[in-house]
């Protein structure tokens, strides 16, 4: 019931404290807590705060693939559309092993340049995600070198108004320097494996002001030698107003911990205050 009234409040409360951005331009919440797509952090900062405003947001997401389930909830703060602070807790369920892996991710993102709508060049941000596993047993068992790590990333994004036959077109490219295995859920690094640069990308078309349809790609390292796959998804995101976003996606996470064909669905809800 609490959830229902929470959602109802967001759906009908059109006046967020900070409404200084155009609808949908902050993006949604990615699984590590940063503003982004579902799996890729984007250059935009979370929430609708513009240069002289601040805002906070909260989200919960669930990804459900064949043999695993990931639940994430987190909060995000935006200071003057310059700095984004985020914190997320992930719970990764492995029903077959009756195991749950928990990871905490704290993030900071700084906007270096631009605005995804108005600047001539893409908006550019740099960010860090500090991750630590609560209990590194599984990670150690699989040969991971560490149970905590830091990802650093550089992201560029742009919204092209009317570019696709009159439809607004969005793209983002992120380069991430990381040694995280399965985003850190299976630890960090391994013997003979070091940090590497990984490429991530998203693209979306806005079918209306409120609805975007997009795809994402996230390159993954293979430190543990378990055939870790690149991740992909197709998403649809709905922005009924500046207080609420609901995103659904179809995931293709490939092979996880040696188990193939991890496809499934994803839903995420973000509220902005």
């Amino acid at each position, binding site marked *: 019931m609490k959830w229902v009234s929470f959602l109802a409040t967001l759906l009908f409360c059109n006046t967020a404290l900070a409404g200084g951005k155009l609808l949908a331009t902050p993006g949604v919440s990615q699984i590590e807590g940063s503003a982004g797509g579902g799996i890729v952090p984007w250059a935009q900062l979370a929430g609708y705060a513009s240069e002289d405003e601040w805002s906070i947001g909260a989200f919960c997401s669930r990804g459900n693939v064949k043999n695993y389930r990931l639940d994430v909830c987190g909060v995000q703060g935006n200071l003057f559309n310059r700095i984004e602070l985020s914190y997320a807790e992930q719970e990764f369920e492995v029903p077959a092993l009756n195991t749950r892996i928990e990871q905490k991710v704290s993030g900071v993102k700084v906007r270096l340049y631009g605005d995804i709508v108005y600047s001539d060049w893409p908006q550019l941000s740099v960010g860090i995600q500090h991750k630590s596993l609560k209990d590194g047993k599984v990670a150690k068992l699989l040969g991971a070198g560490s149970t905590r790590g830091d990802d650093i990333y550089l992201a560029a994004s742009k919204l092209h108004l*009317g570019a696709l036959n009159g439809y607004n077109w969005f793209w983002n490219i992120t380069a991430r320097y990381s040694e995280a295995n399965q985003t850190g859920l299976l630890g960090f690094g391994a013997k003979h494996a070091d940090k590497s640069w990984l490429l991530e990308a998203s693209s979306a078309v806005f079918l209306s002001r409120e609805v975007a349809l997009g795809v994402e790609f996230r390159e993954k390292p293979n430190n543990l030698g378990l055939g870790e*796959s690149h991740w992909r998804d197709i998403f649809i995101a709905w922005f009924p107003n500046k207080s609420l976003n609901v995103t659904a996606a179809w995931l293709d996470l490939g092979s996880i911990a040696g188990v193939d064909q991890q496809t499934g669905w994803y839903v995420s809800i973000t509220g902005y205050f």
Partner: protein
Amino acid sequence: MSLSNSYKRLLLAITMMVALSACQSTPTTLYQQVGEQAGLERLVDAFIKQIGQDEVVFPYFKQTNVSHFRAGFITHMCDVLDGPCTYEGDNMVQIHTGMKINEHDFNHTVDLLIAAMNEVRLSHSLQNKILARLAPLRAQIIKI
């Protein structure tokens, strides 16, 4: 590693949308698509009505001569949308200097323009093309 069929279909759809927009010739100007002078007047009147009812943007216009603004804004839009007009009024910097419009209020004005475009039933894609013409002007309008 192969992508799912739905992913490939989406790829195809996106590629086709890009291709179609690239080879489509534009037989009409945006000005014509808005409905020429009469359509533009309807749009600007709806926009002025939106501003008049808005507590954020209206204060900027407290001292403004609305009929002068209406005429100037219509001519400027006509010019920007490739219509048969030449805007000869003060430039964007001269007009908006001293207003200190911040990003929030600019975007809020864009929200009002979108509401006005919805009110006069401009299509989603025409709205976006109009916004694409106006967006580059922001740098000459805000924070001065």
